[in-house]
């Protein structure tokens, strides 16, 4: 019982991080049709911004997290305009290789600037230690992660439902040409969507720095998990990746806890089976 609870708890915390990072990727791949392997770069960048600000300049945690969102979101707009934009509608191979190039550069850049080691992440005092819920004590930071993740997810979903920007994104995902023909400026929309997705990834990277350590290899190391979440969730879907992240987070935590001798084998096998059963993912349109 306590093992199951523990797996669920840590799995959900992990899932929140996975979702925050991957939702932007789902939209880039679904809306812009871009096979973007470099999405993890933005998550790593968020982690670096936060840890550098906290460790190097004593900036308080909430401020550092907010800065990660803003800085990375803004920087990603530049990258989108300079690079990604050129390859919308290009073949997959070009997109794959371009984003691999981006990963290489960022990995090297991070190593050069901040060294090969992981950036230490120390949660603020009020989020350290354990929270006792009577029947059981939970690590405070991970509990916070689950709550913060849930709040952000709710905000994101509400925002996409209730705002004009959200309506436009949904319209464009549904039918790009239709959206253009009713006068939505998709060029601008893409840039803002890309920035939002990257900003969210930065949030995920920053908040999740305690689970996925911020080091130069981050973007490559965890890429496969981001991709799994998106592919299983369904391209272009906003909610799909959330359930996929829960599935991946909890099963992966479970398998690693219960059957460590098999490593990540099961999660790969599961993904393989799932994609053969539903090539469009769980929530993708056939």
């Amino acid at each position, binding site marked *: 019982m306590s093992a199951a609870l523990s797996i669920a708890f840590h799995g959900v915390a992990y899932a929140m991080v996975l979702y925050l990072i991957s939702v932007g990727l789902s939209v880039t791949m679904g809306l812009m049709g871009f096979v973007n392997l470099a999405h993890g770069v933005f998550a790593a960048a968020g982690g670096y911004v936060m840890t550098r600000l906290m460790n190097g300049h004593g900036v308080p945690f909430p401020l550092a997290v907010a800065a990660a969102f803003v800085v990375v979101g803004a920087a990603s707009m530049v990258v989108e305009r300079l690079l990604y934009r050129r390859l919308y509608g290009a*073949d997959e191979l070009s997109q794959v290789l371009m984003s691999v190039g981006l990963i290489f550069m960022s990995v090297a850049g991070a190593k050069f600037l901040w060294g090969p080691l992981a950036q230490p992440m120390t949660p603020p005092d009020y989020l350290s230690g354990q929270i006792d819920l009577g029947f059981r004590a939970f690590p405070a930071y991970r509990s916070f992660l689950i709550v913060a993740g849930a709040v952000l997810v709710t905000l994101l979903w509400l925002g996409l439902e209730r705002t004009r920007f959200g309506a436009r994104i949904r319209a464009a995902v549904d039918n790009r040409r239709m959206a253009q023909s009713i006068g939505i400026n998709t060029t601008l929309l893409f840039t803002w969507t890309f920035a939002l997705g990257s900003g969210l990834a930065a949030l995920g990277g920053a908040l999740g720095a305690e689970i996925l350590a911020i080091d130069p290899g981050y973007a490559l190391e965890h890429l496969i998990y981001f991709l799994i979440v998106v592919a299983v969730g369904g391209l272009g879907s906003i909610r799909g990746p959330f359930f996929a992240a829960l599935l991946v987070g909890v099963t992966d935590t479970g398998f690693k806890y219960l059957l460590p001798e098999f490593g990540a084998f099961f999660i790969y096998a599961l993904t393989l089976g799932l994609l053969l059963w539903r090539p469009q993912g769980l929530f993708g349109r056939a």
Partner: protein
Amino acid sequence: MTSETAAPLAVEALVRGHRLRLVEIAPWLIGGLAYFLFPDYLALGAQILIGIIFSLSLDLILGYAGIVTLGQAAFFGAGAYTAGLLAAHGWGEPLSALVAAGAVAAILGLISGAIILRTRGLTLLMLTLMISFMLQEAANKAGSITGGADGLQGMAVWPVLGVFHFDLYGRTAYLYCLAVLFLAWLAARRIVHSPFGRSLTGIRENEARMHAIGSPVFGRRLVIYTIAAAFAGVAGALLAQTTQFVALEVLSFERSGAGLIMLIIGGVGRLYGPFIGVPLYMIAQDRFAQADPVYWDFWIGLLLILVVVFARGGVLGLADQLRRRLRRTR
């Protein structure tokens, strides 16, 4: 009357690729000369030749048939472990092991291809990744068989043809790889210029049209996927035999990715892309990467972006453009 002049012209264009041109001897001249000119670099030379075979396998599926894969290392690794395990368990005869490795990889390609090649786009990409990750994870955890993260040791490879011992200078290794590459090249050349090869190009150019003219698209893709897997398996076996060691890395995403990068630098969808891209990349890597791997990664990343954005045809594409421009100014 005009069609009489147009006819030979168009037919000529069709068969031209197949006729052997003088420049096509160049790789073999260079490969042969290098043996005498750079006796100290034969180990690197063998690695390059192996890399070319691997890249050639990618070129066949990706450049010609348009199947984007990120998991080609699965077949490379399958071949490497086949040859490695045979040699570690008492069968060190290299040629038969090479054939066995190619066969194992081909079977793996056939089975996995039959399962995944019905999908397209990101799904296919993910499936190729999943298969190679699963294999790597399996090889990692099956340490009692594969040696796991420590690598497979204790290989004893017998002399090639019972005569040529693998020596410390890598002479035998180099010539052995050169000979196998030559055979691979003959096969690949034949494939790409055959009607079958042209139909692969057709699938890449316009799949809907291929279906509409009654082409069994799935079958054709499966055949080339299997052939390419065999190529990759042979390359992996060569690596195992010439280094007498198999590391987990043979199955890694990094290997699949590096093969892609070298291919695009040389020129994807061209028979000679691997012959240009692989030596360029690996020689540069040998020169610069040891000195400073951080800079190396950075510049390779930048180069990759530049190639994709500005020179999609790679070095050979640039050469073509140059030639065309020269002809126009003349």
